[in-house]
């Protein structure tokens, strides 16, 4: 796309060829009113208020594309008449209950009504019964709804649940006179508005979706509200604390909205989480899982002294990746000073994977990020349960499919109805566990540049191809000439006579013929369906940009080294851009900052994990630590961005920095270490207080900084091992969390009410003897556990899922390192 210049209201504006006029104007701080449009989603054309005149013709700014030299007038007399009429229509029958509406003034209907200056009403229609609905975690009040369809649009184009749609409103039609007397667009918009309200796609009155709450966030009025926030507080009373979500590696921009807890309790409490929904979309955990703070922590001096003693005694620090970069730096500094072993298996796996990957790629980090995936045409995902490992990766995939006319290829052993439901152009391959190597070989085979790829790999790939002859039925069109008799009037005599006319026509005809086709054995090994190649070819039409997302299944895979090298080869020798999904919130940061060890020593300190002395942000350890929403610091996201986060809630206990200071370090605050983060791995020497956290009007992300992708020495050796033919069969368990749960911190929150247990799909439950609520024992080579069966309709197929968010369940005992395992299940 090339830079062009357009003229909006006399101002020369630089923009991209094909950019929507509305976005071009917004990027240059020119105001065009618009209600229904969401950046990154497809134009809905419900409100029609963004009317502008482009080269003398009225167009909608949200779906008209910029052309070089275009002249745009944002306001003319007719346009103003239309806008005024549209706003009057929106105000027809809208309840005057602004005083008790949860939008409390953050209302676009109010704003535009005042902006356009609607002071009298000219239109009426009889209202219908529009009583409110309780949809579970959302509350819908059709009386307040202006049917801009932003909720429907975001659910379809961004989230991918497609749980909302417009349904008939019923009631009277508009007075026929209006058609003549009203401005054209206003009438058309009203005519549509008057026939619809928002309803659920599943036809019931209970939401069954991945519960992200994005629809309520984008609602311009108070029609869709989070049930937990209903009538809790006016928006203007809330102080917004800019932060970064601490639940997964996506590192979404959020703001914690805080206010005193109640009249009696002046301590701050988080009432809700908001986001810049035009540029970032949250998942249910980010939106509703905010009250995981370590409340009631106090400065317990005895416990603190015990902690200092424990640190003097210990030789190992075990920790999880739900810590900030600064704390990771502090742990590394302690390691250097006192020789601790740092143990964090999940970050270690990512660290090793990245190192193996660097040997071929020559860069410290993968090349792309999720922001780019949004605009990519063709996406392949290997080794990640996308919807739960990183919901934003799923949104990126869905956004690409729905808005960027993209297609996707999803390799994962667990059948996932959510991913399958993203659209027709998503293909899923449920290969057996351990076959991730084969999947990557297939990607290399299908998309790799065979001329540049190392010879032996090309030969190895060729060995799977053979030719086979198959009989196909084809429909061809044949030209048939036939003689038809027609009656025609003879012009000379004026009489009717029969003449013969030759007519040719095309007739479809079915023929069987034998053709020689390529037979790819890799497909057979992976167990794809017969039409795989045919569908893929169709999906690959007009695709220019490609992305590969790989996930945690690969990092802990027995042959992860080989997988890392394969991934690097795919990035190097194909058009694919690569994104790796880190396992936990700050796995990437930890793996870059800390030198991690494999084995524990004799006496270990556990930070948010087990140990001989436990520091815990969950409040259940020997010494309290702050949770992520109680501390300042930076988190490294999947987008290779170092995002700052602020403390939303006060914390009265000790933190890691206090212990470090007692052991001879000297820093007033832990954020004093931000500037010291290692530049050798890509961090930038920048003070915490200088890190911004916002988005610009054109969507530019101004948050923290992006890590430099440091070059490392690559070896010339590009050899990869052949894939092993091992695969897990029989009864398989997988270590993954349900939607909206990530760690013990999400489990602790009040609004995320997922039940812990052994997750089985409805399909599997109906096939087997187990029922929801049964207590079963799962035994693997590593250990066994007993828990209750929970039915999960967000998964399908036969693989049983064991969550990691509940410490008490302790599902880790069942697994070696790899996320899959064979197991036997027995009813108790």
């Amino acid at each position: 796309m090339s830079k062009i210049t357009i003229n909006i209201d006399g101002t020369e504006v630089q923009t991209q060829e094909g950019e929507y006029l509305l976005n071009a104007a917004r990027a240059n701080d020119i105001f065009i009113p618009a209600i229904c449009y969401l950046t990154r989603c497809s134009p809905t054309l419900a409100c029609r208020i963004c009317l502008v005149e482009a080269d003398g013709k009225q167009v909608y700014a949200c779906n008209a594309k910029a052309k070089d030299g275009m002249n745009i007038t944002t306001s003319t007399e007719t346009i103003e008449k239309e806008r005024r009429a549209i706003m009057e229509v929106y105000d027809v029958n809208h309840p005057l209950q602004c005083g008790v509406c949860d939008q409390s003034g953050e209302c676009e209907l109010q704003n535009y009504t005042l902006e356009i200056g609607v002071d009298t009403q000219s239109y009426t229609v009889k209202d219908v019964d529009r009583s409110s609905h309780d949809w579970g975690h959302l509350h819908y009040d059709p009386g307040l709804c202006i049917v801009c369809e932003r909720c429907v649009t975001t659910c379809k184009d961004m989230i991918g649940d497609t749980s909302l749609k417009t349904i008939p409103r019923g009631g009277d039609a508009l007075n026929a006179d209006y058609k003549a007397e009203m401005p054209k667009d206003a009438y058309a918009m009203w005519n549509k508005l008057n026939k619809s309200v928002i309803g659920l796609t599943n036809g019931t009155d209970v939401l069954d979706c991945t519960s992200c709450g994005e629809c309520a966030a984008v609602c311009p009025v108070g029609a869709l509200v989070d049930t937990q926030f209903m009538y809790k507080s006016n928006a203007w009373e809330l102080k917004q604390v800019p932060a970064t979500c601490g639940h997964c590696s996506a590192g979404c921009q959020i703001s914690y909205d805080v206010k005193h807890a109640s009249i009696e309790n002046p301590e701050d409490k988080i009432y809700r989480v908001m986001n810049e929904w035009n540029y970032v979309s949250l998942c249910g955990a980010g939106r509703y899982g905010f009250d995981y703070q370590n409340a009631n922590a106090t400065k317990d001096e005895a416990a603190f002294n015990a902690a200092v003693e424990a640190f003097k005694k210990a030789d190992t620090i075990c920790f999880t990746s739900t810590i900030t970069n600064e704390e990771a730096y502090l742990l590394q500094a302690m390691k250097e000073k006192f020789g601790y072993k740092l143990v964090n298996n999940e970050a270690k796996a990512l660290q090793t994977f990245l190192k193996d990957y660097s040997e071929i790629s020559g860069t410290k980090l993968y090349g792309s990020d999720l922001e780019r995936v949004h605009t990519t045409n063709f996406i392949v995902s290997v080794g990640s349960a996308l919807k739960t490992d990183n919901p934003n990766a799923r949104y990126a995939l869905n956004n690409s499919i729905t808005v960027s006319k993209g297609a996707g290829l999803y390799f994962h052993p667990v059948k996932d109805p959510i991913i399958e439901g993203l659209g027709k152009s998503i293909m899923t391959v449920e290969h057996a566990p351990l076959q991730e190597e084969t999947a990557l070989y297939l990607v290399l085979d299908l998309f790799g540049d065979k001329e540049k790829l190392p010879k032996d790999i090309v030969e190895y790939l060729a060995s799977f191809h053979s030719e086979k002859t198959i009989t196909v039925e084809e429909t061809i069109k044949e030209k048939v000439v036939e003689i038809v008799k027609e009656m025609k009037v003879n012009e000379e005599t004026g009489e009717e006579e029969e003449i013969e006319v030759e007519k040719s026509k095309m007739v479809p005809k079915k023929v069987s013929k034998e053709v020689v086709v390529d037979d790819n054995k890799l497909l057979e090994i992976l167990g794809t369906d017969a039409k795989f190649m045919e569908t893929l070819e169709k999906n690959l039409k007009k695709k220019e940009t490609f992305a590969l997302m790989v996930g945690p299944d690969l990092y802990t895979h027995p042959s992860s080294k080989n997988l890392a090298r394969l991934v690097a080869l795919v990035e190097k020798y194909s058009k694919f851009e690569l994104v790796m999904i880190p396992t936990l919130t700050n796995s990437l940061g930890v793996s870059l900052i800390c030198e991690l060890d494999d084995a524990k020593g004799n006496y270990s300190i556990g930070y948010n994990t087990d140990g001989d002395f436990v520091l815990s942000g969950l409040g259940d350890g020997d010494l309290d630590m702050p949770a992520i929403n109680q501390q300042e610091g930076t988190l490294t996201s999947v987008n290779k961005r170092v995002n700052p986060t602020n403390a939303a809630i006060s914390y009265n206990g000790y933190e890691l920095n206090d212990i470090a200071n007692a052991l001879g370090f000297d820093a007033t605050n832990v954020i004093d270490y931000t500037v010291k983060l290692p530049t050798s791995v890509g961090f930038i020497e920048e003070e915490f207080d200088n890190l911004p956290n916002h988005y610009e009007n054109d969507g530019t992300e101004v948050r923290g900084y992006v890590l430099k992708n440091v070059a490392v020495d690559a070896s010339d050796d590009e050899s990869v091992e052949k894939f092993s033919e091992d695969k897990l069969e029989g009864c398989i368990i997988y270590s993954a969390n349900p939607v909206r749960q990530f760690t013990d911190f999400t489990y602790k929150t009040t609004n995320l009410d997922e039940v812990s247990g052994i997750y089985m799909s409805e399909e599997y439950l109906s096939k087997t003897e187990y029922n929801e609520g049964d207590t079963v024992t799962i035994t693997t080579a590593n250990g066994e556990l007993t828990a209750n069966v929970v039915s999960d309709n967000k998964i399908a197929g036969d693989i049983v899922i064991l969550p990691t968010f509940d410490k008490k369940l302790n599902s880790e005992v069942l697994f070696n390192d790899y996320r899959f395992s064979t197991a036997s299940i027995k009813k108790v």
Partner: protein
Amino acid sequence: MKMEQFNDRNVADNGYFLVDIEDYPTDSWGKFKRVVKRSFKGELFVGLWVVMREMLRFDIHTVKYPQEKMPIGPRYRAVHEMKRLWESDTERCIGCGLCEKICISDCIRMDTKIDENSRKEVSEYTINLGRCIFCGYCAEVCPELAITHGGEYENASEQREHFVDYDYMLTPIDTMKAKAQKEFEGFGAITPHEDERVKKTPLSY
């Protein structure tokens, strides 16, 4: 809007004049002179003389408070009251929070929640009279004429913090039954001829 009246900072022309006040002494000799002058001038007796003169005239207008009390004007702004609806005796307050927002001395706080009928309910409401400056903004902003000022000005208390809650301010139901609730006529009250100035929204009924 013309800004001249704000820009004219020469207050003397508008009938104001500077009072002739002696400058404060700065050195210790000056301070000593002031002490001596004040001690021997007998200024104290000027005040005592005025009191005695008025007493001898037997023309005293002082109200014998607290035995006697002056009537309070209907627009007087003393301790707040919460009004009820005439039609149903239910509370007028809808919990919109505007009073909490507008309060310039930040003395109003309220907690709201959703009640069993899915309506907004004020679960707790307090005014800290120790902070309140009785400016009347809360009554003026109230869209329901719910919070008003009343005539109760005797709100001395033992400590600076002095809270009144919702139930204290609410019109007692007995007063309501006796139709004895008084409407407030001050800030925020409906002005006469309000109906004539409102333009009706057309309806299809």
